[in-house]
């Protein structure tokens, strides 16, 4: 009996000593840094499902990715999204619909995964080894430190950091989104046809005009206060003035991030209507796929949009609406 108890103690001690050593072999943070821009050329097929309100969306996509942030993403399904293609040359990302550019975003202005902010606002679980598509992966749970944000579970390719599977759920476990790579093929970068990443030659008139602004510039130009930080660990990460096609007046888009999630503040000038409330008001949950809060501020209408809980988004909106010098 004593022998058995001693043997158990020895086994437990051995586990305690060896396990951290094994885990130390993987640096999850460096893997996460690779996730946004894997240093390898590959082609994959992805299936995504998202749930919002009482409905759901599903899609199958095909991706070609090259190091340096170059990629092409095509929708294979559903039918209404076939023809939507995303092309990135590493500096700009274009959204094409039936070979016609309709959207363009500057990549260098958009923050990639901020790992230091991520670790400040989320708890990363010890990585658990697993196998996906015959490859060694690390499963990492990313849990927010404050309530109102979704939980994430990442399956990261152990070698290149490719995000092979992702689950997003509410704190009670209700799923929000599920993404999984169903096929993965590593290729020689030379095997990719240059036409795959070709940006359309014709500059379309329908592209939005984007002008990046610092926080101070945005405050000055729009005569408002943009706090440096918001509750729940959100910090100002950038702003731009956007003029959409067919809309004469530009709007301001200010982004606040917590290292993983972003909330967007949109300010539309001179468009206020009488019936709009001065107090932040949550829009109907069925109106959009993400929660939206709207309020009126002098002659402007503000929208706060984000993939966080409605109470948290409302709290953030309240802070923004009450921001004073």
């Amino acid at each position: 009996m004593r022998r058995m108890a001693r043997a158990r103690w020895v086994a437990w001690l051995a586990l305690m000593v060896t396990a951290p050593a094994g885990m130390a072999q993987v640096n999850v943070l460096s893997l996460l840094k690779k996730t946004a821009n894997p240093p390898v050329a590959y082609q994959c097929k992805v299936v995504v499902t998202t749930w919002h309100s009482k409905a759901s969306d599903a899609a199958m996509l095909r991706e070609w990715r090259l190091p340096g942030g170059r990629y092409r993403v095509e929708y294979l399904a559903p039918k209404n999204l076939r023809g939507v293609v995303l092309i990135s040359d590493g500096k700009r990302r274009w959204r094409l619909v039936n070979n016609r550019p309709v959207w363009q975003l500057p990549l260098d202005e958009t923050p990639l995964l901020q790992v230091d902010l991520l670790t400040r606002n989320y708890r990363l679980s010890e990585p658990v080894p697993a196998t996906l598509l015959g490859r060694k992966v690390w499963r990492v749970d990313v849990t927010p430190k404050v309530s109102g944000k979704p939980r994430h579970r990442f399956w990261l390719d152990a070698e290149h950091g490719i995000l092979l599977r992702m689950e997003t759920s509410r704190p009670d476990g209700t799923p929000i989104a599920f993404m999984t790579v169903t096929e993965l093929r590593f290729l020689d970068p030379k095997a990719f046809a240059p036409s795959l990443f070709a940006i359309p030659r014709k500059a379309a008139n329908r592209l939005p005009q984007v002008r990046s602004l610092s926080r101070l510039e945005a405050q000055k130009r729009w005569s408002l206060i943009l706090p440096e930080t918001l509750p729940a660990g959100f910090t100002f990460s950038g702003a731009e003035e956007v003029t959409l096609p067919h809309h004469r007046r530009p709007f301001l888009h200010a982004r606040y991030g917590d290292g993983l999630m972003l909330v967007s503040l949109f300010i539309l000038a001179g468009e206020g209507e009488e019936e709009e409330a001065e107090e932040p008001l949550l829009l109907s949950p069925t109106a959009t796929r993400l929660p939206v809060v709207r309020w009126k501020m002098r002659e402007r209408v503000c929208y706060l949009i984000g993939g966080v809980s409605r109470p948290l988004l409302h709290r953030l909106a309240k802070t923004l609406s009450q921001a004073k010098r």
Partner: protein
Amino acid sequence: MACPEWSEKLSAYLDGALEAEPSAALEKHLETCADCRQTLHDWRRLRERLRTLPVPPPAVGMWRRVMHRVMRRSPARPFVVPHRLFWWMTAAACLLGAGLVWWWQQASSPPSPSRPAVNLLVGYHADTVALTLGDCPTWHLVASNELMEGE
């Protein structure tokens, strides 16, 4: 007095309305029948005399009076729309129809804001978020659906 069987044909012959075959038969008959020949001669003379008679001008206001009586007495007079009025009425009907369709669409669809649609802003936001994880397909899907609805 013309022969009874040729009397009607004589009238048609005089008007030039007789076919070639009966016309030839009548001419053959005229060679042998003096009565018919005389009747035809009399009718021709009568016609020539009638042509030479002077035509009296109509009394002043005669046409107005006639038309007035016709219009008043006709019980089921058809409604005739003047040409120009017809086109005006057609255009008005088209405008009314288009207005009704527009009103129906406005009434049946949820109120859409005059500024960029909220879906467009949500799509823009989701598109930006997608980039944080190298254009993560999850956010990309949200953006695509919202942009499709916002356009």
